[in-house]
């Protein structure tokens, strides 16, 4: 009985921490000794019923078993969810701006303009978001990738073309005025 509780707890903790569904073959790997598939199935049933009155539920999906938050919590959890809460960092926005205004650029170009070496995460976030893509390699030693903005970038920012990007003025005064007025798209269709 003691032994069976230990097995059950190990399965539960594996499912709570794995971040992906686990199938029976995988759950067997948790143990040094060989545990029958039927035993694991039985323990999964026990876990499922023990959790039935709690906050999560054990669900069987295509790739195996996983713990899911019960649907009644979805609204609350969405309030926390990164997709909505997380804004891109200043660094990421600067990298995007450099790519948009100066494309095609290499990582080295971006670093030169910003004066700091680039956190690879920044580019990865932009590529994952499909706002930025690699369009080739520059023919210099190391053949660095050339980055440019995508169609999705234009779509998501409501631009028809890069020419619709805000115009940057030469004089600092204009910049200052611009920041106050920030009159953006109206005059951009010539």
């Amino acid at each position: 009985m003691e032994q069976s509780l230990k097995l059950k707890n190990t399965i539960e903790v594996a499912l709570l921490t794995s971040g992906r569904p686990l199938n029976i073959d995988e759950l067997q790997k948790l143990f040094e000794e060989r545990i029958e598939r039927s035993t694991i199935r039985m323990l999964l049933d026990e876990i499922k019923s023990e959790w039935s009155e709690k906050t999560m539920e054990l669900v069987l999906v295509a790739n195996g078993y996983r713990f899911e938050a019960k649907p009644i919590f979805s609204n609350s959890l969405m309030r926390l969810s990164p997709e909505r809460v997380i804004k891109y960092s200043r660094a990421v926005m600067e990298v995007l701006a450099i790519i948009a205004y100066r494309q095609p650029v290499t990582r080295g170009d971006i670093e030169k303009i910003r004066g700091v070496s680039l956190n690879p995460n920044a580019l990865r976030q932009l590529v994952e978001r499909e706002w930025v893509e690699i369009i080739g390699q520059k023919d210099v030693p190391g053949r660095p990738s050339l980055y440019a903005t995508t169609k999705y970038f234009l779509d998501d920012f409501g631009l028809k073309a890069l020419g619709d990007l805000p115009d940057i003025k030469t004089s600092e005064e204009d910049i200052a005025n611009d920041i106050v007025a920030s009159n953006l798209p109206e005059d951009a269709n010539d």
Partner: protein
Amino acid sequence: MTDSTNVVDDNKAKVYGESLKALPLDLYIPPDALEVYLDSFQGPLDLLLYLIRKNNIDILDIPMALLTIQYMEYVEKMKQIKLELAGDYLLMSAMLIEIKSRMLLPPIISEDDDDLDPRAELVAKLIEYELMKKAAHDLDDIPQIGRDRLVAQGYFKKIVEPQSLPDASIEDLFNAWKNVVKRAGQFESHKIDRSELSVREHMSLILKKLASNELILFDTFFDEEKDPIPKLVVCFLAILELTKECLIKINQQEPCSPIYIQRSGD
């Protein structure tokens, strides 16, 4: 460690006043194991610390002759097995020899007492590195997330929004650009106007087009019938700019023959 020794001829080296009559036996390692063994040193300081430990040397009173001899032995072995020998090792050899020879000179009277011992800098380095080695070891002993510990990460169904809005606005983007330019302090050179942006956009488009084909006929970038004149101009400027930045090459076999464009380097 002093028991595992064998006799060497050169007995000039002294350890705490006693002649060094032997080299440590553990210098002689089966050849196949040697490489792995010598390769496991993180650098010259690591090797020196090892030698200091092995010989029970007082780090505050290092016998430079002994240490230098042994250090050179190891470096020689590393060279022999053609280990990728970092220049740092050779640099350290030079430093050790320099310290050793400075110690042979009569002490110079100096107002600054700290500068008297030529070994001081080396000792400080060894101690700092030893500290950091320890720190690395202690750090590695702490249970790490992902290696020793796991965090709960159950699943929850995301409610799909009918229309997902961008997480950044064009104002954000513009302000980011202004920050970059401001910080760079190079307003003049970063002045961008709309026509230049169109050129930049066409540069990207042309490069994308060139990605799949090796050579593209120059004319195919221009549709004189459909494209308005400004667009033709912008496209032409983009090609010129790409050439200037060495991103593409323009080829023509002989005067008046077709002009081809290709990525440079392909």
